[in-house]
């Protein structure tokens, strides 16, 4: 009866008219709306839940991602699916007054929380917020030094299209960093993690945010996301070169990096 039993019954990626929404199959056109519902619902408590659910470790995953970006003062960084602006705030300090950070997300509620938070933290001036879809980035070709997408790609309906769109707007030599839940490298760890995400997370979601459904979706969407090697292949197919990944916390999370040729 547990949700894990449904794993692998359905094809991993979108096919034909339907796509995955967690473990459910939904019409491709409906996924966006459903994902929006999830993030509308979690936006106001997102940061707190993030800390709670990952025991604060998401900050360390992000820290390493930023190191791998090797972003320098004066550069332009695009943080896609940037949500409440965690990465954007950090990049803002690195690129400085001469640089620019674009915080992009499809969801207005998440962006609104992000904007408030950036102001609260005194991050103003070089961060711009833009509501846009990762699959159709409205930026000129070859205009961005570095793109990050943290815990966002799994929510995107057509991941291949999104990766191609990222490749297009990056400058040659620019880099993409994808931080995303992945496949634990150890089967026992995988089981513990399953127990945690399918039983504990929705409960936490229910107690703290009174919203177990959204957190169930988050757990399910993690399982539906391509594993390390698959994502690496997808990045190569989208035209990125020198692609590599680093597992973190036993592969629960991986950060992939690719360069635009």
């Amino acid at each position, binding site marked *: 009866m547990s949700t894990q039993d449904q794993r692998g019954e359905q094809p991993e990626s979108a096919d034909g008219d339907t796509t995955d929404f967690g473990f459910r199959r939904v019409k491709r056109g409906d996924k966006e709306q459903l994902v929006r519902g999830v993030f509308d619902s979690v936006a106001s408590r997102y940061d707190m839940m993030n*800390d*709670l659910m990952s*025991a*604060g*470790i998401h*900050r*360390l*995953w992000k*820290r*390493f991602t930023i*190191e*791998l970006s*090797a972003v320098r*003062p004066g550069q332009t960084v695009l943080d896609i699916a940037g949500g409440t602006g965690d990465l954007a705030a950090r990049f803002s300090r690195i690129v*400085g007054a001469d640089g620019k950070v674009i915080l992009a997300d499809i969801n207005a509620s998440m962006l609104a929380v992000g904007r408030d938070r950036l102001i609260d933290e005194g991050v103003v001036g070089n961060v711009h917020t833009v509501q846009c879809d990762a699959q159709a980035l409205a930026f000129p070709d070859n205009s961005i030094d570095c793109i990050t997408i943290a815990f966002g790609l799994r929510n995107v309906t057509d991941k291949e299209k999104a990766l191609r769109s990222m490749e297009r707007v990056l400058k040659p030599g620019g880099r993409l960093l994808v931080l995303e839940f992945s496949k634990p490298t150890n089967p*026992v760890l995988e*089981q*513990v993690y399953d*127990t945690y995400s399918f*039983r504990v997370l929705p409960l936490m979601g229910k107690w703290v945010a009174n919203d177990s459904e959204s957190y169930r979706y988050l757990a399910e969407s993690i399982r539906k996301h391509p594993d390390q090697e698959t994502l690496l292949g997808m990045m190569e197919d989208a035209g990125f070169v020198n692609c590599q990944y*680093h*597992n*973190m*916390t*036993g592969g629960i*999370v991986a*950060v992939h990096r690719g360069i635009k040729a």
Partner: protein
Amino acid sequence: MNHDPAIIAGALSALELAIARALTLAPVAAKELEDMAGTHIVIECTRPEIDVTISIDEAGQLQLKQYSEEAVSTRVRGSAEDFIALVTADDPAATLINSKLEIIGNTAPLLALQAILSKIDIDWEAPLVDALGDVAGHQLAKFLRAFFSWSQSAGKSLRRQLSEFILEEGRLSPPNAELEHFYQEVGRLGLRVDRLQSRIQRLAKRLREYDQ
């Protein structure tokens, strides 16, 4: 890089914050550090095997990174003990000459940095809360306090604390037997969760029957 980047990131951000805090209480040292802005020094630790880049940014803040592409002025290679000896030395220049540390590039920034760091009084605990958030940071701080028996260690030297930390750090990838044991424990926990779940279901069923 065979350590988990998240664990290294945790240790480095805690250290970074501890140093930043200490610097706010030591304006002279902070000013001296500011004068070193733009310096990048790589510490190549061979045992345990970790590379750390120490960067001093424009604001004079010290940053510790496990990955960096900055052009470095100095690269120092050696074991953790060699580094600890240097950090805690009264006469760093002499220590440096006599130690097994291998230096590539300019030694001056290294000695200058050592001189600054030796002047400040670093509190290792509080920053964990900032690094990991209230809940996790507090838990970890509590654990570390117990671990280092921090309460009685006020007089303990930095050297001692550091070497204990490094010792533990060396254990970050636990030996197989220990892992096996951990996995067995986890497996047992899983079974208990399953039993608990079916018990809850039985209870819920009984409650429903009772209600009707």
